[in-house]
C-alpha cells in the first residue's frame, strides 16, 4: 500500500516538489554569488576606490589623473565581478543542466530496477 502511494506521489506532486527544490537551489546560487548586484554594478569602481570626481576648478592635470584612477578602479571592479559572474553562471549552468536532466528522467527513476533487470537478462557488460 505504502509503495503504491510512494509511486503515486512520485509521478504527481513529487515531480513538482523536485522542480521547486531546483528553483530554490538556483536562487541560492544567485544570492550566494550576488548575481543581481554584480550585473547592476558591473562597471562601478571597486569598493569606491578613487571614485571621487575632481571639482570644476581643478587643474586639467588633476582631472586627468583622477579620471585614470577611476578608470583603473572600474577596470579592477569589472574584472573581479566578471570572474565571480562567470563562476556563478558556470555553477548555475551545471546545476541547471543536472536538474533539468533529473526532471526529464524523473519518471524513469522508479523504473530503474526493471531497466536493470532487463539489462541483466540481456547480459549487457561494458
Amino acid at each position, binding site marked *: 500500500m505504502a509503495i503504491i502511494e510512494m509511486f503515486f506521489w512520485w509521478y504527481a506532486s*513529487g515531480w513538482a516538489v523536485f522542480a521547486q527544490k531546483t528553483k530554490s537551489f538556483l536562487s541560492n546560487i544567485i*544570492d550566494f554569488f550576488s548575481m543581481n548586484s554584480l550585473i547592476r554594478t558591473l562597471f562601478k569602481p571597486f569598493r*569606491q576606490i578613487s571614485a571621487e570626481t575632481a571639482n570644476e576648478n581643478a587643474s586639467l592635470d588633476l582631472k586627468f589623473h583622477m579620471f585614470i584612477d577611476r578608470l583603473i578602479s572600474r577596470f579592477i*571592479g569589472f574584472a*573581479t565581478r566578471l570572474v565571480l559572474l562567470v563562476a556563478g553562471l558556470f555553477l548555475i549552468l551545471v546545476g541547471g543542466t543536472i536538474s533539468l536532466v533529473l526532471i526529464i528522467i524523473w519518471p524513469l527513476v522508479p523504473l530503474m530496477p526493471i531497466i536493470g*533487470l532487463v539489462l*541483466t537478462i540481456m547480459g549487457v557488460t561494458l
Partner: protein
Amino acid sequence: MSHSFEFDSKNPRVHKAYQKRIFNSPAVLLFNFIILVVLLAGGGVLFYFKSCFCWLLFGCSAFPIVFMFWVKNSLSEIPIKNSQKFTDLISEDLLLLLNEKMTPTDLVRILPKTRSGLFLMVRFELPKSFFEQIGGLLPAATEPIYDSACKIRQETQSEEITGAILAVAIIENLPNYEQILSQLKLSIHDLYQGITWYNYLNGLVKGGRKTLHTGGIARDFAFGYTPTLEHFALNLSVRYMGTNERIQQAENKEIIEKIIHTFSHTGRQNVALVGAYGSGRSTLVSSFAETLMNADSKIPNSLKYRQIYALDAPSLISAAKNSGEIEYLMIKILNEIYSARNIILCLDNAHLFFEEGPGSVDIANLLVPVLEAGKIRIIMIMDDQKFLEISAKNPNLTNLLNKIVVTPTDQNETIKILMDQVPYFEHQKNVIYTFKSLLEAYRLSKQYIHDIEMPGKAKLLLESSASFAENGLVTETSVQNTIERTYGVKIKVAEDNEDRETLLNLENLIHARMVDQVEAVSAVSNALRRAAAGVKNQSRPIGTFLFLGPTGVGKTELAKTLSEVYFNGENNIIRIDMNEFVEASDVSRLIKDGAKDSLSLTAQVIKQPFAVVLLDEIEKAHPSVLTTLLQVLDEGVLRDERNREVSFRDTIIIATSNAGANEIRKHIAEGKKIDDFKEVLIEKMINDGEFKPEFLNRFDEICLFKPLSKEDLMQVLDLMIASTNKTLSSQKISVKLSDEAKQILIEKGYDPKMGARPMRRIVQKTVENFVATAILSGIAKPGSTLTISATEINIS
C-alpha cells in the same frame, strides 16, 4: 462546506501521520541508507568484474533513493486541509493520539503528550491533577469540545487545532469555567493569549529552517571601505543580520515603515527617534538594520544592504587628545560614510554628540552642513527633553531631522514583546517563564521601576527574575521576590504563619512600645491588615492618617513603632519636617530630582518605596505644599521635577500636627471622650482656617491623641526602663526602680502640656546617670541588678 465535529480515523491525514511515524524513524532511515550503500557498492564491485548483474543492483538502488525522497518531502509535513472537518484541521501529534471511541476524559489524558498541550500546562501552571479533577465535570461526548476547538482556532487565527487549543476547548466546556479559572488567577483571555504565544514560538522554529538571503559574497563590492568608522562604531547590520524574529511580533512595524519611507524618498533623509529610555528605540533600529540586510524583505532597492553603524561617543573621545583631534576624526568618519555610499549613521544617545562635557562632544557645526547638503543618512536616538535642548541650542540641526516619536507600550503590546523576548532569556538563563510571570513583570515594573519606560522595564525585571527561579521555572512569585529583594517592598499577600500572626496581633505588638492611643493604633492596624490581605485600593497609599494632639503623646512614636513592626525596621521611615516648607517655592524642594537632592520627598520614596512617610508638623507647611500633597493622598503618586511618576502606593502616610492640642486637653480635662468632641474639633479647625476641608477629606482617618494621664505616664516610665535595660543587656547589667522611686519620677516628670517628653529627660538625669556612675565605680558588675530607691533618685 459541511461541518463535522467528529474524529475520522479513515481520514488520509491520519493514515499519513502513521506512515510518517513508521517510515520517518531514524531506524528505518538508517536501514534504508545501508541498503542503498550495499546496492551501490555491490553494483560497483560487479561492474568492476564485468558482471551483467551490476545493472540489477544499480537499478534496485533507485528504490531506496525514491523512498528517501518520498519520506523527506511527502511525509515531512502533513498540512491541514481547507475544509471544516475536525480531522482535516488538527495537528500531526493529535492525529496519532485521537481515536473515534475517545471520551472527554481520554482527551484530558492525552493533552500532556502533545507539545502544545504541555506548553500550556507548564506556562499557565495547570498541573496534571487539575485536568484529572475536572474530568468528572466534562460533557459526556467529545463533539462539543471539538466544536469549541474549531471556534477557538478561528478566533486565535491559528493554522491548526493543537493540543493547546484542545486543552482550552476542554476548559471552556466546563460549567462555571470562569470561576474555576479565577481560582487559578487566570481568565479565558489569558489562555487564548497562551495559544497565540505557542503559535508564535512554533512559527519561529519553522522560520528558522528557511534559507536566508543576505546578498552574497559580492554584496559590498560597489561600496567603499570605512576603516575609521569600523574602529569607532558598531555595525548593527552585521550583528542583527538573520535575526528576522525580532520584528515578527513587535508592535513597532509601523515606525519601521515610517523610517523606510523617510529614507527612500527625496528630501531630508534623516530621522530622530524620540522617546523615553526603555521604550524600544534601539530595538527599532536593530530591526530596521535587519530588514535592510534581508534580500527577501519588501523595501526599495536604494535601501537594500545599506548598513547601519552606531557611533560610540566615548571611544571617539578617548582616542582623541583634544577637540581638534575629535573634529579631525569626525571629518574622516563623515568622509568615509559619504564615499562608501551604503552607510546609515546611527547616533545612540545623540545628545552626547551635541554638548560639551565629560563623555560628550559637540559635532553640530560639522554635521549640519553635511546634513544640509544631503551627503549622508543619519538616525539619532534621544529622549524628548534632549530633543528640546538640542532644538533650543541648534534649531538648524533639528530642522533637518524627521522626528518620529516612540511611545511606551501598553499592557497588550508589552506582553507581546515579552513573549517575543522570552525565548532569548530562556536560552541564556536556562529557565522557563510562566505566563503569569509576564503579567506580573508588567504590573510590578510599572509600579516600582523608574527612569526607564515600557517595555524596557518589564524586560529588565523579567530578566532579573531568572535568578529567583524555582526548579527552573520563573513564576509570578519569582518576579515578586525580585522586586521585594531589590526594592525592599513587601508585595506578597501575607502567606506564612509568622506574617499572619504579626498582622493579627498588630495592636498588641504596637502597645508593647507605646501607651494608650487605642483609636489611632486600631486605625493604622486595620489599614495594614487590609493591605496585607490584598483588599486595599491598589491606586492609593496603604493608609493615610492625620494625627492630631499635644506634643509628647506618641504621634511620632506610633509612626516609628509601625515602621519597626511592619516595615522591616525603624529605619524604614521617611521623616519630613514640614516646618522647613513654609514658602510656596519650597514645593520644588519636595519634588527635587534625587540626583540633586537626595533628601527630597520623591527621592526618598524612590529609594524606599515601602516605608512610613511621616510629615511632621503639617500645619506649618505652606498651602501650596499641602495642595501638592493632595495628589499623593488621593492617588498615591507624585511627579518629581523630571516628571517621573513616583509611587506612594506602598507607603503609610502619617501627618502629625499639634493643631487643636489645647482643645483636646480641655475636653479631656472635662471628662469627655474623644468621640464626643472629634467632629466639633475638626469643624472648628476648618472654620479657623488651620486646614482646608479638601485636605482633611483626603485622609483615611483623622486620629486624635489624648494627653497622657499619670497612669499612662507610669507605663511610659516602665517602657523607658525596659529600653534602658535593653541597652545594658550587652553588659549583663539590669536596673529596676522601687515603687517610691517611680512615684517621685512621675511627679517630677508629669506635664500635661508636654506629654512624655519631660519624663525622658528626667529618666536620663536620674536613672541613666546613676547607672553610669555605678558602672564606672565598679558597683555594677556583669550579672548584677541595680535597684534604685527613692533616696537615690532624690540624690540624683
